[in-house]
């Protein structure tokens, strides 16, 4: 016989009729993908802020927090999801918990670095002007740290969009479901659609966040960066 199943020809890479027939499924997968990403990043932010502020306020906490989150980050995402299954099943919680953990790690690191990067002079000036610790934090340090924080949110968002596809291996998946379908049926079209849409989604989200950053940091605009 031959060397195996005939290599998929470029012509068969996209069977447009398949796309036409499956617009509903594709749309559902895309929506699920967006929801999972949005929730994971939001939850990550909500959890990251207190942790980061604590690490910033009490520098001794920083090293252990960063260290432990750093180690968790090296755990392959697939393993994390698999390990959660016995506890939370094939449900949305399993995916969300895993995804949120990863966004948390990225965000903590960036928020703390952003806060630390605020110029010492500025901080001292604020202190000299009589700003309370809290006011200093919210009116001076956080706004100045925003670019770095948003850079962190960008990375977290794009990374999560990629990770959501892995949740297809545990029954969720968003656009990842298209990969699994294509794999099972040995059919390239759903896979290509999934890849293109994931990339577009990430690109769009990234652009949106850059736009947000520009809106939120008007003082940075005039420097023509």
């Amino acid at each position, binding site marked *: 016989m031959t060397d*195996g199943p005939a*290599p998929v020809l470029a012509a068969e890479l996209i069977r447009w009729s398949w796309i036409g027939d499956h617009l509903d499924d594709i749309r559902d997968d895309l929506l699920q993908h967006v929801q999972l990403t949005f929730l994971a990043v939001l939850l990550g932010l909500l959890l990251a802020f207190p942790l980061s502020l604590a690490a910033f306020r009490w520098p001794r906490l920083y090293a252990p927090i960063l260290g432990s989150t750093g180690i968790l980050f090296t755990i392959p995402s697939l*393993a994390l999801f*698999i390990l959660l299954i016995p506890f939370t099943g094939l449900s949305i919680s399993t995916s969300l918990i895993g995804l949120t953990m990863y966004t948390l790690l990225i965000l903590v690191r960036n928020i703390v670095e952003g806060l630390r990067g605020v110029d010492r002079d500025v901080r001292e000036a604020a202190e000299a002007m009589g700003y309370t610790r809290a006011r200093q934090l919210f009116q001076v340090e956080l706004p100045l740290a925003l670019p770095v924080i948003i850079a962190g949110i960008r990375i977290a968002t*794009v990374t999560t969009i990629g990770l959501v596809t892995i949740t297809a291996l545990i029954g969720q998946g968003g656009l990842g479901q298209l990969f699994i379908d294509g794999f099972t049926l040995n059919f390239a079209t759903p896979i290509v659609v999934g890849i293109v849409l994931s990339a577009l989604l990430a690109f769009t989200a990234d652009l949106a966040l850059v736009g947000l950053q520009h809106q939120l940091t008007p003082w940075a605009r005039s420097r023509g960066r």
Partner: protein
Amino acid sequence: MNVVNEVLAWLTDPAQWSGPDGIPVRTLQHLWYSVLATAIAAAVALPIGVYIGHTGRGAIVAVNLTNLGRAIPSLGIIILMFTIFGFGIAPILVTLFALAIPPIVTNSYIGVRSVDPDVREAAEGMGMRGRQVLWRVELPMAMPLIMAGIRTSAVQVVATATLAAFVGLGGLGRYLIDGLAQRDLAEVVGGAILVAVLSLVTELLLGRVQTLVVSKGLTERGADAAVRAKVEKAA
């Protein structure tokens, strides 16, 4: 906890450490995919990043490549590659290669680009031509960032090489896939720990290499002072 005991038992079982299914063999397979892909990626990405940094052409691509690269779902790539190439090593190599390229390009570009223009001018003033400036000034000064890029790529690649098991190959990912298939939680945890350890070791090892490779007078912050000193000395 029971799971902890089971995992420890799995990790310390001598049977786990011998034979074609053993941890050493699987680790070597894992490293083989990772090293091969990263090396080829570096060979391709470094020249590109350096060229863009040196000439300034195509900067937008270089700057955004890392961000775009993060957007490409590795699972999708490997499945697509499998659908095209079938069983074999091609799918995992292509996937890891694609993963490793962006950080190296971006970092090499930034590394070369961010060499202090004064230093570059000084070198040109000394009569160095483009290529000499590149090799004797820009590259050495860009080394910290270039190495950081290679490190980032390498660690990502090692973590993602677990996908090889998804398309029937070897590597440490086998413990995840087989453990899942046989409902052996200890195997999954054990495999995850091994991958995590390997990633950390990679990070530390390359950190060491970076210290060795980066020119002695050069730290990320002391770069300007050091090079200025060198240029003055040579004058």
